[in-house]
């Protein structure tokens, strides 16, 4: 009899988690290189009660994982020559920080006092031959579509842009970084292009997210009402049986 309440509760819990994810998407609607996420929800078929052959098993709601849409977001022109956007899905700049290798789509780079190309957070940007050192007195850096950086026509390095066979291997690490959570190897992405003076925006679709928000709220309300009704039913049953 309590099954209805438990099934309802399983849905309420996934809805809350979904709301958390939608809230994170909306909060990051303006975050450079952010990729939208979605909770993947499925049915978990529970075991049948031992002596009730005629009744089907109860299905609970279970969240199986978070799907991430690595689709390309629009490139926004910033006009700053150390801002880079990747045109091409699923490819990343390679970084190295205290915690090892990291990957990012956020190409708002800067130079540290020694002239190393780093992220705004200080992680060194990796080129084909290790870190990239720029001496700005040699001229403004120009970046070709394949990631080659040159100053005054002389190549000084090439941005290392990689992709993975399975994007599911990546884990978000905050600060716009992704980390490799499996033993998948990064392969050189030769099919993507780097755009200088551009930054990739967030691929969150605000209208879709607001619609999700409404759907989650309404679903939550109706599940709550279902739990109330089930509760009501059992209360009335107890009252009636008590009278008999």
């Amino acid at each position: 009899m309590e099954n209805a309440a438990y099934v309802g509760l399983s849905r309420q819990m996934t809805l809350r988690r979904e709301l958390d994810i939608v809230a994170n998407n909306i909060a990051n609607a303006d975050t450079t290189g952010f990729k939208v996420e979605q909770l993947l929800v499925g049915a978990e078929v529970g075991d049948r009660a031992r002596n009730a052959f005629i009744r089907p098993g109860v299905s609970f709601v279970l969240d199986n994982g978070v799907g991430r849409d690595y689709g390309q977001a629009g490139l926004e022109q910033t006009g700053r020559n150390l801002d880079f956007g990747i045109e091409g899905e699923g490819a990343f700049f390679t970084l190295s920080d205290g915690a090892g290798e990291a990957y990012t789509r956020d190409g708002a780079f800067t130079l540290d006092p020694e002239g190393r190309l780093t992220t705004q957070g200080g992680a060194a940007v990796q080129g084909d031959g290790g870190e990239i050192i720029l001496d700005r007195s040699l001229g403004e850096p120009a970046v070709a579509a394949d990631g080659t950086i040159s100053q005054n026509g002389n190549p000084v390095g090439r941005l290392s842009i990689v992709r993975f066979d399975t994007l599911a291997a990546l884990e978000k690490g905050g600060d716009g970084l992704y980390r490799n959570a499996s033993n998948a190897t990064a392969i050189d992405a030769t099919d993507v292009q780097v755009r200088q003076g551009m930054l990739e925006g967030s691929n969150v679709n605000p209208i879709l997210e607001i619609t999700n928000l409404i759907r989650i709220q309404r679903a939550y309300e109706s599940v709550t009402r279902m739990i109330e009704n089930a509760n009501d039913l059992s209360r009335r049953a107890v009252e009636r049986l008590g009278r008999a």
Partner: protein
Amino acid sequence: MRALRTAASGMSAQQLNVEVISNNIANMNTVGFKRQRAEFQDLLYQNVERMGAQSSSQGTVVPTGIQIGAGVKAGSVYRITDQGSPTQTGGRYDVAIDGRGYFQILLPSGETAFTRAGNFALNGEGQLVTDDGYAVQPNISIPQDAVDVTISKTGQVQVITAGQTEPSIVGQLELASFFNEAGLEAIGDNLLMETAASGAANVGTPGEVGFGQLLHGYTEASNVDAVAEISALIIAQRAYEMNSKVITTADQMLSVSAQVKS
């Protein structure tokens, strides 16, 4: 409920964004002003179910896992140091830098500050100073009987004194450059200070490799693009509204739960 805090982080991020944009718009006509841009990053993620974790004793693994983000934060607010357009003023001591570099200014505290604002003037002793009366480094004194002053592209200051036909050199303007200009700290009054992030100043002559040229009779306008700022403002406002909508929704869901009849 995490969604409430997540949306609150989104609202405060957008508020910061509006503050940066409004400062840019307010300084649209400030000489030598460089626009700033707020860059956002996602906050930490909580691993509810770690990807790659074993999902059965048969060695199957969770393919995607569940990671829930905690919102957004300002990653950095950086200065975009691209060139502002030179504006002809005809001012006798107005100098614009076309290219890289900063003028050096001696503060009353004895420290050196840096600026792109070249709207200079003379003080009572004939010394070249900023609007606030701080001396330009190296010191340049214009004789009292100077009839005409010329500042060359390479920073040579020449004057023609009364009764003379040949100009005489009275000083040489110098520029300072940095590895990481975005790391300079703004202290107001169009002045910037050197920091550990910017690296040490490298002083040179205008027109040398790595330094810009000087334009006499011009000042550098701010590089704020009004159209871009206004559209950024609209985006920021809408993003703020959407985050407040999340708060409303989360609140209403909580209230639904709180009102369940038992």
